[in-house]
């Protein structure tokens, strides 16, 4: 039974990918220091979260059957501290959260700590819209903002956004009977803070200070500018026939993450200034509630009050010259990718030709011809098939007749 579990349940867009990658890359080292990060693949906790919350995810959920129970079993079997982390866990309902806590040992002697990394809404709103766009949404920024402000929260976007971003409600769904001292809020520092400050806060919250971690991962979530996000949205509008696997590898990974994110000189996404008073009001209410609850804070709750953006570019109507520029960059990247694949294909064709040649040479062998004739003859009768079976068993060959 794990003595202590650090259960990191969100929120998205707060540096969680980086934390998870560092933990995954260093899982052996962590174990040597008495810390379990139970994962045999980098997305193990994501699959466990899908399973816990019964959440389909473009077909990936088929790999998730039983994933939460397997993860929880590893945690229960470990004698030490375990870390479980995925930001979409923020969306769990109360009963799902209770099930998760109990399966990790809460109520059976394990000290479960809830960790939530959090960032001001001024930055979270545009970041979440961009994330939606990178997941094939076609909703404009204006419609996105309108939907978020609808008090009913109806609609797929609003219901998801608030489920994973409304910090007091997330803690309320997850906390159950945990004392406030076992709820930890890690705040994301404001723009302009030292680059590694958030990481230092994670290190502090997860007790990783004594572990000489290899931080060499580049899989941190990357962000796009306004014209680049506009371009991906335009692609989404006409690409719903593209298979999810191809979308993930070609549009999200190749175009968005590897190509367009490198264009850092373009205007960044920001909150529409017209929404700032509404957002500032929400942030104040949240900060007040979180202070009142007395949770452990790594950083400062004041950092949840986002600064009004100094500049704003409407991502629904960016400078088209910048969009064209981004599109040209994308075309070049795609052509380069096609070139890489062409080389790989040619290499495979060469390999296949060589194998065909070797096969043809082998087939000319009188020994092989006789063997094939004998096989055909024996296969055509019951007795012959039995004899072949005996032969295969004698050779220790597990193959059977077709």
């Amino acid at each position, binding site marked *: 039974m794990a003595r202590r579990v650090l259960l990191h349940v969100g929120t998205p867009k707060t540096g969680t990918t980086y934390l998870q990658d560092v933990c995954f890359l260093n899982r052996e080292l962590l174990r040597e220091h008495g810390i379990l990060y139970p994962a045999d693949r980098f997305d193990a906790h994501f699959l466990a979260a899908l399973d816990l919350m019964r959440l389909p995810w473009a077909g990936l959920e*088929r790999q998730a059957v039983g994933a939460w129970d397997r993860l929880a079993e590893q945690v229960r079997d470990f004698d030490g501290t375990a870390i479980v982390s995925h930001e979409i866990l923020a969306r769990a309902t109360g009963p799902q959260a209770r099930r998760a806590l109990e399966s990790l040992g809460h109520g059976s002697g394990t000290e479960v700590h809830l960790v939530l990394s959090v960032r001001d809404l001024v930055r979270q709103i545009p970041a979440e819209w961009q994330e939606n766009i990178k997941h094939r949404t076609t909703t404009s920024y204006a419609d996105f903002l309108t939907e978020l402000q609808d008090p009913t929260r109806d609609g797929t976007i609003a219901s998801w956004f608030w489920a994973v971003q409304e910090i007091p409600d997330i803690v*309320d769904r997850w906390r159950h009977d945990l004392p406030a001292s076992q709820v930890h809020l890690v705040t994301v520092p404001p723009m302009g803070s030292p680059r590694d400050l958030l990481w230092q806060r994670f290190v502090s919250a997860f007790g990783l200070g004594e572990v000489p971690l290899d931080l060499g991962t580049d899989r941190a979530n990357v962000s796009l500018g306004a014209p680049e996000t506009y371009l991906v949205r335009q692609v989404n509008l006409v690409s719903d026939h593209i298979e999810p696997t191809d979308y993930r590898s070609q549009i999200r990974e190749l175009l968005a993450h590897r190509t367009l994110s490198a264009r850092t000189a373009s205007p960044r996404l920001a909150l529409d200034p017209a929404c700032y008073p509404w957002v500032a009001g929400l942030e104040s209410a949240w900060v007040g509630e979180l202070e009142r609850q007395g949770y452990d804070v790594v950083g400062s709750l004041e950092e949840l009050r986002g600064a009004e953006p100094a500049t704003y570019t409407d991502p629904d109507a960016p400078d088209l010259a910048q969009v064209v520029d981004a599109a040209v960059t994308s075309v070049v990247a795609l052509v380069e990718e096609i070139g890489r694949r062409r080389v790989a294909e040619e290499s495979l064709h060469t390999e296949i030709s060589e194998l065909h040649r070797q096969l043809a040479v082998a087939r000319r062998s009188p020994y092989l011809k006789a063997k094939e004739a004998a096989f055909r003859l024996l296969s055509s009768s019951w007795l012959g098939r039995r004899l072949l079976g005996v032969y295969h068993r004698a050779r220790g060959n597990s193959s059977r007749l077709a």
Partner: protein
Amino acid sequence: MRSAATWLAHLRAGGTTPWAAYDGGDPPLPLETEIGAQQLEVLRRLNELGRVSPALADRVIRADLSGRGHGLLRLAGDEAGGQRRFGTPPVDPSRLPYDELIRPVLTLLAEDVAGRGAPERPVAPRRRRGHPAHRLAGDPLLVDAVRSELDRLGRPEGGEGAVTYVLARALPTMLAATWTWRALADRAPAWEDWLAMLERTGRLPAEIDLAQQARSAGGGMRIVLDPALLPGALGVDGLTAPHDLALGADAAELARLVTSVVGLHAGDASPDLMIRGFAPRLAGGQAAPLAVPEQARAWVDAQARLLRDTLLRGSCDVLGEPDLLLAPPTPLSGRSPQEPAVLDLALRTLLEGA
């Protein structure tokens, strides 16, 4: 007291009073588990349709909400609910949209699909020498039906020099069959969205793009438009007219929705469970068939004429009249899926399966 707990007690007893008309019950009860307005309203609607066993009622109130949407919603006017400043505002459950109400039902149906399993797929017999070798392609529902029948008759696919028989029929019917198959076997967009996507991309699905298949196959392919000619072509006497699954419009949509979540319960076994386990439960009856809606009709008709002309011009061997690709001159009685009917079918399927 008018609370979720007392209303639940009313519903557990078979009550059907909507929350808005419910005037409370005694004594005040603690809620056994956190339950959403979605599950409570589903239980009420099931009560309206028939007797709900205690076991099913239990499953309903504990059902996870499949897919995206709200979390567990609170009841507006719940006197035991207290004031909460955060989270989604409470609701009147009778006003919940279709998308929310169907979520717990889909979870339960998916659990049933995974739990019940499916009949064993018959083992294909060994192919005997002396029969012409064949392969099947085309309309996926027809292919599945004919393949089963040929296996039963000892004529499995495969073999050297096999001729490919592409099974085809009127294009609107083939489109409906292809979408139904995909709805069962994989994830598929909604019917009308799918048709709109085909029109926008100007492409027919690969399985039924006969022109493309004829181009890429070269020789060794025959298109079968008249099923009565297939037994003769294959040299099979006992081959009866194929009887495909032919789900109604609402049943096909329900299958699509269950398919979208069943992977969480059944993993890679999902397609087989859906096709051989769940689909037969939904098939048959007098349900309205799935049909191409008016807005897509012109494009589909044009594609059908193009295909027919291609077959008339081409060198491909066609069994049957190419005109059979065209839609019947009179409009079909079919339609697109309708949300209230899909929800009703989902609830009835759940109730009947319990």
